[in-house]
């Protein structure tokens, strides 16, 4: 029953304000696709274009291979969960869940059977005759979910469905939602601005920025090979460090420092930036890049060490067993395969990062 969604060069503008600026992607059948990006980047608008709640300025939406760009929402085989849940406040839980089936005149016996199944699945059996105002936020969320899955549509669209829940409940619902999507084989398009949520749930993440796609990849690739400094800075807790490089004696160095990072012969653009994840950095007894510790944050298992290398800020996440104090001078090392190079002018990733002999790697004494 799985059905794929495709957008082709989708655009949406309100006057001069462009919300979605030529987006093309495929949400594969039965997979969990996440639209991720900061607030205002056009995630909701993209989702609403797929749902048919907004009319596209340009481009096309294809569902199951058919062009549905000009079709109303109920012709698109979709169900949707809204951020605010959009439950009908005057109807009880059962009536809210059954609303769509009644509209479509599904026979009463079948309605009752499907309601029982969905209520059982979501643990709503004992809440069926309560009003939305008489149940908790997490329960309202489930009712909204119930209303979406009872429709048995092959596609489910969700716009930040967990953002109104507290941290613990959010984690539980994340697990449940993912399991449910797997179990029912739904094609999911899920909007969030929370990269942790995206990485935990997605089969595929589409990172949006200013109405355009920055990167479309699976979570692992997104983390290991961010396509741009924007993605690099968006993914990870804390996100990737980005440092300016400058040509030095032995090769490319961090601007203001003299430890070679990349060989001089490498064919690189005029201005280059280095990306290193905090968790890939370790402290060394000697060698590596010298840095000054500014602040140390204790996280239990790890320490977050704020440092500066020749004036450029950088965060390292190191094991607690290395004692560090503010004001101390330390040596930082990281494996060569975990450093990323970006073109400073465009922010784009430089693939095939030039080969090393990399001093930071060869001279380390303590591994990460």
């Amino acid at each position, binding site marked *: 029953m799985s059905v794929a969604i495709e957008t082709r060069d989708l655009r949406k503008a309100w006057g001069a304000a462009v919300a979605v600026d030529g987006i093309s992607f495929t949400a594969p059948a039965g997979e969990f696709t996440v639209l991720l990006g900061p607030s205002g980047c056009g995630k909701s608008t993209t989702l609403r274009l797929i*749902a048919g*709640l907004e009319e596209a300025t340009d481009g096309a939406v294809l569902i199951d291979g058919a062009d549905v760009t000009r079709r*109303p*929402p*109920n012709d698109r085989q*979709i*169900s*949707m969960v*809204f951020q*605010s849940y*959009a439950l*009908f*406040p*005057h109807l009880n839980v059962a009536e809210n869940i059954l*609303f*769509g089936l*009644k*509209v*479509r005149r599904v026979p009463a016996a079948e309605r009752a059977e499907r309601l029982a199944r969905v209520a059982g699945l979501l643990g709503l059996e004992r809440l069926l005759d309560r009003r939305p*105002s008489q149940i908790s936020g997490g329960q309202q969320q489930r009712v909204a979910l119930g*209303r979406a899955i009872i*429709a048995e549509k092959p596609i489910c669209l969700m716009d930040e469905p967990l953002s109104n829940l507290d941290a613990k409940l959010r984690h539980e619902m994340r697990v449940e939602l993912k399991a449910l999507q797997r179990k029912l084989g739904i094609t999911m398009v899920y909007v969030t601005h929370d990269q942790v949520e995206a990485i935990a749930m997605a089969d595929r993440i589409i990172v949006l920025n200013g109405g355009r796609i920055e990167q479309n990849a699976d979570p692992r690739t997104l983390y290991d090979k961010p396509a741009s400094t924007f993605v690099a800075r968006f993914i990870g807790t804390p996100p990737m460090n980005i440092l300016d490089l400058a040509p030095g004696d032995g090769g490319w160095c961090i601007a203001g420092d003299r430890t070679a990072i990349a060989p001089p012969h490498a064919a690189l653009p005029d201005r280059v930036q280095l990306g290193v994840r905090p968790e890939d950095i370790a402290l060394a007894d000697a060698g590596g890049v010298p840095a000054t510790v500014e602040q140390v944050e204790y996280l239990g298992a790890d320490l977050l060490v704020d440092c500066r290398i020749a004036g450029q800020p950088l965060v390292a996440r190191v094991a607690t067993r290395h004692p560090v104090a503010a004001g101390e001078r330390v040596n930082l090392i990281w494996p060569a395969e975990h450093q990323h190079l970006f073109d400073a002018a465009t922010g784009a990733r430089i693939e095939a990062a030039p080969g090393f002999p990399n001093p930071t790697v060869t001279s380390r004494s303590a591994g990460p």
Partner: protein
Amino acid sequence: MTRPSLTLRREWVHGWLLLTPALVLLFAFTHLPAVTTIWDSFFSTPRGRREAKFVGLRNYETLLADDTFWQVLSNSLWYAAVTIPVSVGLALLMALWVDGRLSGRGFVRLAYFAPTVLPLIAVANIWMFFYTPGFGLIDQIRGAFGLPEVNWLGNPDLALGSVMVVAIWKEAGFFMIFYLAALQSIPPQLREAAAIEGASRWTFFRRVTFPLLMPTTLFVSVNAVINSFRMVDHVFVMTEGGPDNASSLLLFYIYETAFKYWDTAYASTLTVVLLVLLSALALGQFFLLDKRVHYR
């Protein structure tokens, strides 16, 4: 005496002191007159040196035999039965129409609200111009189509209807504002959620909008009931109850009896009828509608 009970007692005194002004006013101008009215309805009207004397139910017997009373009561009931649903329904329709339109909404709202800002006397005068036989706006338009003149206010068959139209015109705009405010508080996501389920506009109205407007409908219709028995200014200006009591309403008849014929005892009796009628309607409305009203 222990301290807590002292504080309790002081709070109690303060509470009553705060309540007193409102209570005094309420008793002096609402409860006392109501009780006096019921009391007076069992006495004769004092005339000259003759004092009022207890007459038991004689005033009520007069009432039952009074043809004018029956006509006025039937006028009032017709007036209520037509103006209440029509003005509330019209208000809802106009609000739904205005709510969907963004541009010029402010102007449209103002246009509908205008009759409400005008005093009823002024409204009645405007309509006098519309209704004037021969020269009035309505007859001029009718004339353009070759239709004959109509004496809207002078014809016993048309007078009550003509008075009702004025009341509806004034009330609908007022009630529309309440409906409009209620409509704007309904989250737009509800409409979108319904659209995804394939609900038509009518289904959405019937299953969602209308139920969510029920508290407003209750409020508006209680007001409409009270107004339909309370507002008679336009009757004074337009018809003075005529011709032949055809457009006279209960409150207008009470006024005439009390301050034109100075039959205060009979006026009290009529007032008791009005009180009973209004109380019954208000109670009925709350019990009937309360079950179907959803308060968020």
